[in-house]
């Protein structure tokens, strides 16, 4: 089913928000779920974050960062153009209950994934304290949206260009480790979504105090329906599939080293595809190549 892009927004240099027409997804989406898309007929199937669903309009918002050929191609599509395929919602929804005080930690496009979750958590009466971070102020996304949806927001940047200088986990560690008092809220639950190393660090920070911590894993997937097993993760000795058992898991049981290692499996090939595509785009821009140039020929010259 093709999905038309009806709005295209660049959130920061490498991250985009696309509103697309996908009524069958919008109607059933619940916070924490994702979609798998294919930008063109010969494209990869890649899982993407859904930041928002508007079932009455049949629209979902996808947020993605340009990291490889597929996301670069997606970023070049314009309003009115179509994604070749979009399937979802996939994965299990987040557990939304009244936990009390919930800390939400977000980094990168994980912030977009967190957004609907924290809206839902706040709506059922939780106090939602959010910590979001990025390398620089310029790379922070959805700050206003997150601010509106949270009880309180803390921002960190690596270079101190906005909020506190440091990492999201520094703030979290300070809250958890400082003696009880007004400045150190008792935390009932932590939800962390972002790059795998960030989620690993969050798990380490909350583990000593045994604060229930949930992470949403962004593993490699192909079908996203439990068929290929490429998204397998290990919780102790138990194998789980991120696509149908997750994507959310108990952070204290996840073997993050495996998650991080397996994310690198196709890196070399991904790099090759990206470089080839960039060369192809450059050739097109200079008018040196026909539109549908065969990439294999390019890579050999």
């Amino acid at each position, binding site marked *: 089913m093709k999905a038309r892009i009806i709005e295209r927004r660049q959130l920061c240099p490498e991250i985009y928000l696309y509103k697309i027409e996908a009524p*069958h997804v919008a109607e*059933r989406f619940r916070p924490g779920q994702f979609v798998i898309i294919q930008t063109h007929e010969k494209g990869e199937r890649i899982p993407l974050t859904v930041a928002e669903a508007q079932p009455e309009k049949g629209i979902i918002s996808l947020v993605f960062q340009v990291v490889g*050929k597929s996301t670069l191609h997606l970023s070049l599509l314009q309003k009115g153009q179509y994604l070749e395929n979009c399937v979802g919602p996939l994965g299990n929804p987040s557990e939304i209950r009244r936990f009390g005080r919930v800390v939400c930690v977000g980094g990168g496009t994980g912030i977009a994934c967190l957004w609907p979750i924290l809206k839902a958590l706040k709506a059922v009466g939780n106090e939602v304290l959010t910590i979001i971070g990025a390398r620089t102020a310029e790379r922070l996304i959805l700050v206003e949206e997150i601010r509106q949806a949270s009880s309180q927001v803390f921002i960190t940047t690596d270079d101190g260009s906005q909020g506190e200088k440091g990492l999201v986990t520094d703030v979290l560690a300070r809250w958890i480790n400082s003696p009880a008092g007004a400045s150190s809220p008792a935390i009932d639950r932590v939800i962390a979504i972002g790059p795998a190393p960030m989620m690993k660090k969050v798990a380490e920070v909350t583990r000593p105090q045994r604060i229930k911590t949930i992470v949403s894993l962004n593993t490699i997937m*192909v079908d996203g329906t439990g068929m*290929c*097993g490429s998204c397998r993760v290990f919780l102790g000795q138990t194998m789980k599939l991120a696509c*149908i058992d997750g994507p959310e898991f108990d952070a204290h049981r996840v073997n993050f080293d495996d998650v991080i290692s397996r994310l690198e499996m196709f890196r070399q090939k991904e790099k090759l595809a990206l470089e080839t595509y960039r060369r192809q785009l450059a050739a097109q821009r200079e008018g040196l190549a026909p539109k549908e140039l065969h990439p294999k020929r390019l890579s050999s010259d």
Partner: protein
Amino acid sequence: MIKIGGRRVPMRELSPEERIKNFSSVPLGYTEAEAVREAQRCLQCRGVPCEVYCPIHLRVLDMIRAIAARRFQEAFFIIQADNPLPAITGRVCPQESQCEGVCPLAQDGRGLNIGKLEAFVADWARARGLREKLQIKERPQRVAVIGSGPAGLICAYDLRRWGYQVVVFEALHKAGGVLQYGIPAFRLPTEVVDYEISYLQEIGVEFRLNFFVGQNIPFAELRRDFAAIFIGTGAGAPLFLGIEGENLKGVYSANEFLIRVNLMKAYRFLEYDTPIICGRRVGVIGAGNVAMDAARCARRLGAEEVYILYRRTRKESPARDEEIQHALEEGIIWMELVAPRRFLGDEKGWCRGVELVRMRLGEPDSSGRPRPLPIEGSEFVLELETVIEALGTTPNRLFLKQAPELAVNRWGLIQVDDNLQTNLPGVFAGGDAIRGNATVILALGDGRKAAAAIHRQLSEAER
């Protein structure tokens, strides 16, 4: 006088050296003259064992007779009237244990080459764009088919012929199920699958791709919207060994390996975007048809040494003889009576080998095959960069989770009665979803039987 029987007209094939460079079809198909010669060998027996032993009882005899008389178009219409997918079944059915196995010409279990003749007429018709124009008498009832594999396709075809409004739901972006993601192009070319499916579209079967029943529509709602439902969701979830090292990079399920190669066309990487990494030395765990497919794909992706690692012996292998033969011709190394203990990796998390233990055969187990027993102390290491686990598959947990009212047995197989009806009235199931790992033709048989049962139920309700 024509000598009765005689020898099979040999099927010309790509040479093994040629084959391992590409994913083109290995059998080259009969020419018209060859097909006629092969068809003329038929004894025209009265008991037609070939038809009796066909799970969907195709009119083999009439087809053969028409081919022998060079009436290819007639042969095609005879076969297509009963089988919407002749180009597929002709290629992937285990004929040696069905029609060809019971042929009186069969001295060695290989009688008249019925499979290749069926493929021949289908290919002959495809080359000419020949298709039967159906006169369909429309009925108002809507029937949902979940899953577009072989069971679902034939069920949809039969119901549509009888005039029902049929919608096929498919979670992937292409219809065909295992025909599309599982069976490699050198056994079943993708354009053949696409062409056969396009016939169903042409006669008015609606396909809803990228649609997961349960995720996109509650199962209960689907039951309200449709007069009957056929579940052909297959057995698409891979089994894993559960041993140390399965987290390593370079370890795949056969499903992942084949999905990347077949559905996503990773063997044409850079033209297609999906990558695959296949090392120089590859080990395939298991010795069924899927294992052979994976091993042969690995060879075509450039692997120099590809091992089949099997805990029993060739005699117990569930793979078709033809598949094993083709694999061996392509240089695949058969290593039997070994079982993996653990996978070994390097400091960067890449697979570097497998520790195997030698096995011996003991008393027969519940499957009737001798139980493999480890010989303690016989462990050794085989260096490998890629491991593909082909241990079989189970039904999709996600679908079953979304339809908890469906009765399943302890293996997750949907339970059905003699008419293939589940515990829910009006809901039928067939194929691998009720059988586990079976064959395309058995799935077709189920889909056909369920379609007939649905037709009976709905037409009775009408009266």
